[in-house]
């Protein structure tokens, strides 16, 4: 394998890590003012802010690898260049945060909890990465991610063991997320090169760890474990995305695209 192959795989991996955190942090920020209660508003926006910080760390690593300025990478790329999983770009529910937001809290809890568990497992692997700057970033992110996982696990376990209505809504949320969560668990077409270069562990090992942990939580809370999650609406790691991503990026980049000199 040439060094060129290795660099390409590393760049692909960093885009996946960055874009996953970036788009889910954006979806989280859309909840501001709409969360079930004010304490949650504070917590959720703090988590989204941390996650946007994590995305920035990865974008800076990409900048150092010659991919352009971090702000431009985040704001000026075409949707097809994004490598986030499809389930993370999905809208929070009908409406927008400005007009008739009818957001689904069960979906938010399930998506963030499943993602947090995977992120923890992924970081635990990345902190031993052979690309030292990535290992350093992972160790830093883990100190913050710890609180996110604790937060979403509490919500998840409380709601699935709560009233019949809560349980029914959560079950619907789980079914919805399960259809596409396979997209989070994959490392995409360059996966073999990433693993060979010891940037990250084998995606099957990481997936098994996630499933084992999920199965234990499902058992503990009396839920039926649905088996391996699917990837019905395309592989974001290959640049396959939905209209939801295009719309989100248009909103997100509106100010930057109209005046790139804007300070951030």
């Amino acid at each position, binding site marked *: 394998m040439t060094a060129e192959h290795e660099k390409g795989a590393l760049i692909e991996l960093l885009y996946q890590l960055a874009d996953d955190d970036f788009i889910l942090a954006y979806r989280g920020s859309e909840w501001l003012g709409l969360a079930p209660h004010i304490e949650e508003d*504070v917590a959720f926006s703090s988590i989204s*802010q941390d996650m946007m910080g*994590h995305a*920035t760390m990865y974008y800076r690593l990409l900048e150092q690898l010659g991919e352009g300025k971090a702000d431009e990478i985040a704001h000026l790329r075409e949707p097809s260049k994004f490598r986030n999983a499809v389930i993370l770009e999905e809208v929070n529910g009908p409406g927008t945060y400005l007009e008739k937001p009818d957001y689904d809290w069960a979906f938010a809890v399930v998506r963030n909890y499943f993602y947090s568990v995977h992120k923890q497992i992924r970081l635990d692997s990345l902190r031993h990465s052979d690309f030292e700057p990535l290992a*350093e970033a992972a160790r830093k*992110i883990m100190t913050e991610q710890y*609180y996110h996982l604790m937060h979403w696990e509490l919500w998840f376990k409380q709601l699935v063991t709560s009233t019949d209505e809560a349980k029914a809504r959560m079950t619907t949320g789980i079914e919805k997320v399960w259809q596409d969560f396979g997209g989070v668990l994959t490392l995409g077409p360059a996966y073999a090169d990433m693993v060979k270069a010891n940037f990250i562990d084998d995606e099957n090992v990481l997936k098994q760890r996630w499933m084992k942990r999920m199965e234990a939580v499902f058992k503990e809370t009396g839920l039926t474990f649905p088996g391996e999650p699917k990837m019905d609406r395309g592989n974001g790691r290959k640049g396959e995305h939905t209209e939801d991503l295009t719309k989100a990026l248009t909103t997100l980049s509106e100010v930057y695209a109209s005046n790139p000199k804007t300070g951030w």
Partner: protein
Amino acid sequence: MSQQQKEVEQLVWSALSHVKDPEIASVSILDLGMVGSVLVDGSIVKITVLPTFSGCPALSMIERDIKAAAEKVEGVKEANVEFVFTPPWTTDRITPEGRERLKEFGIAPPPANHVMGEPWAIDCPYCGSAYVTMENIFGPTACRSILYCRSCKNPFEAMKPVANW
């Protein structure tokens, strides 16, 4: 290193003791243990800084303030700030003075030598009581939690413990 460079380095450290955290006016970045190193090369200074929380919006202000403070030191033509993640910033880097100053600002300092995953005790920064409740582990800034003191009936904040895994 020449005697002159050593002197410049000392002056830069002393200038940095006046750079405050924009979100906690009583505490300097040295109190928080955010400065990793000061390297003097002729009239150019490189300062490595350990970010507290990676998404902290105060970081760019801190960077600007550090640069300005260091460039005021005689013998310094240019100061550059570099954010580094090794070693990662942890709350045990906060100095004893820093811990006292946090309390003055109404923020309970984090426990020393915290082990991630273990519970921690927080005393009210106003009356010292341990009879407190956690209202929200997340707070108005990334690094703080919101609590309530059952003894003196004051709401207060606490800095979240951050330790290596």
